[in-house]
């Protein structure tokens, strides 16, 4: 059962500066984009705020350009726009496939890139109504003092469950952020922390303006894809998701970059996988990659589907995608 929305005021700034000023004036506010995560969480009594700052009226956040200098996606661009963008799909396969796999078509027509990157983390003891959580004595992430997933632990393990972040990460995306101290840029991978109750590295009053992705490649030197496991074939958040990009280097070696979501409290890049040399057995390399994923991933009991299965599934998916994409490079 969800509750009625609490009373709040809705502020609709038209520029980035107005949004920054609105937040500085009322720091208890929350930014609102498509609302497909925030409104649901507000109805579950998970958000304390009396003011929403609606970012959808800011035209700078709607920019979408794909040129020689790379791809720029405004934080307010909807997932549907990306799904329907042929050039993005051609040069950045993983980005289009990740957007296809998010929620249902009704959500995708309003859900934004910024909202997806800043999605709250998820856990079966957290994404419940107020009365349900109260009956379970709340939890560390919100209003309680123990974690029901790891009761002896001191930190929340809720899973980051956005599909788009890993797809952008394997393409080397950076985020552009606006806030009271002006603009800054950082690699998307650095935006996140491994803490389910505080997973975003945004300072107070900051929000995402755009994502910048280095030029894609239509010469078939880079291929990327995204895959996820979920309970049903639509709507469901990832139990585990992986984006993989394979690049043919000038030396002839193949570099494989992979990033995971749905398993940890942050999306993250798999580290320590060397490019596959021309004289190397690719199958042995793919098996090593799968082992590396199993070592670095850390799914917790945050969903009804066991963490062991999610660990194995994401490692198998990574191996499968890497193999397929490498073949496509030939």
């Amino acid at each position: 059962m969800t509750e009625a929305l609490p009373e709040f005021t809705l502020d609709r700034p038209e520029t980035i500066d107005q949004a920054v000023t609105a937040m500085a004036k009322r720091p208890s506010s929350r930014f609102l984009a498509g609302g497909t995560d925030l409104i649901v969480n507000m109805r579950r009594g998970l958000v304390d705020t009396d003011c929403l700052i609606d970012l959808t009226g800011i035209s700078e956040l709607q920019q979408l350009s794909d040129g020689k200098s790379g791809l720029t996606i405004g934080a307010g661009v909807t997932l549907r726009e990306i799904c329907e963008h042929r050039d993005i799909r051609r040069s950045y396969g993983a980005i289009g496939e990740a957007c296809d796999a998010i929620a249902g078509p009704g959500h995708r027509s309003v859900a934004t890139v910024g909202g997806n990157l800043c999605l709250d983390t998820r856990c079966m003891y957290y994404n419940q109504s107020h009365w349900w959580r109260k009956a379970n004595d709340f939890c560390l992430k919100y209003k309680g003092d123990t974690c029901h997933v790891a009761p002896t632990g001191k930190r929340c393990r809720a899973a980051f469950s956005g599909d788009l972040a890993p797809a952008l990460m394997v393409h080397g995306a950076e985020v552009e952020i606006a806030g009271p101290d002006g603009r800054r840029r950082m690699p998307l991978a650095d935006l996140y922390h491994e803490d389910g109750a505080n997973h975003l590295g945004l300072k107070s009053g900051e929000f995402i303006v755009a994502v910048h992705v280095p030029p894609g490649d239509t010469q078939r030197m880079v291929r990327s894809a995204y895959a996820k496991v979920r309970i049903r074939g639509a709507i469901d958040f990832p139990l585990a998701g992986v984006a993989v990009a394979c690049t043919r280097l000038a030396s002839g070696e193949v570099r494989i970059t992979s990033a995971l979501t749905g398993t940890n409290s942050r999306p993250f890049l798999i580290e320590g996988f060397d490019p596959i040399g021309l004289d190397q057995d690719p199958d042995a390399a793919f098996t090593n990659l799968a082992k590396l994923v199993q070592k670095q991933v850390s799914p917790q009991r945050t969903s009804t589907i066991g963490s062991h299965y999610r660990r194995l599934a994401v490692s198998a998916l990574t191996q499968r995608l890497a193999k397929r994409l490498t073949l496509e490079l030939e």
Partner: protein
Amino acid sequence: MKQIIALRINGAVCEDAVSDSLLLIDYLREVRHLTGAKMGCDGGECGACTVLVDGHPRPACITLAASCNGREIETIEGQVSNGRLSALQRAFHENLGTQCGYCTPGMIMAAEGLLRRSPTPSDREIRTALGGNLCRCTGYVKIIKSIRAAAGAQL
């Protein structure tokens, strides 16, 4: 706080003072007395509340009414024209695409959004378009058949 919103609902211009925190589904049902769109899960998960906003399906239970200022809303009530059922309504009726009927307004609006973009959709397109709409009765086969029939009827 309240604000005045002006929007079109099924072609008619409407102006109302609404609270900032009023949901579109409550606005349609309680203020506009358009009770076709249903509240199912009430949390964005089932699609029973699907309406079209500027031609695109959207769950009205997680949409703020105030964010629809200046937009075009279409609900199941707008399907009938001059006392005649739409092709989709007739096809759902004739192909048993509706049983208890609770999901039907949302299903038809999701299908309407699809047929406008793709008048002769493949089964895969139909399935994708209905990805956010749940039905506990029909098993979906007859819903897909109904949409196929409506697409044929529109040719």
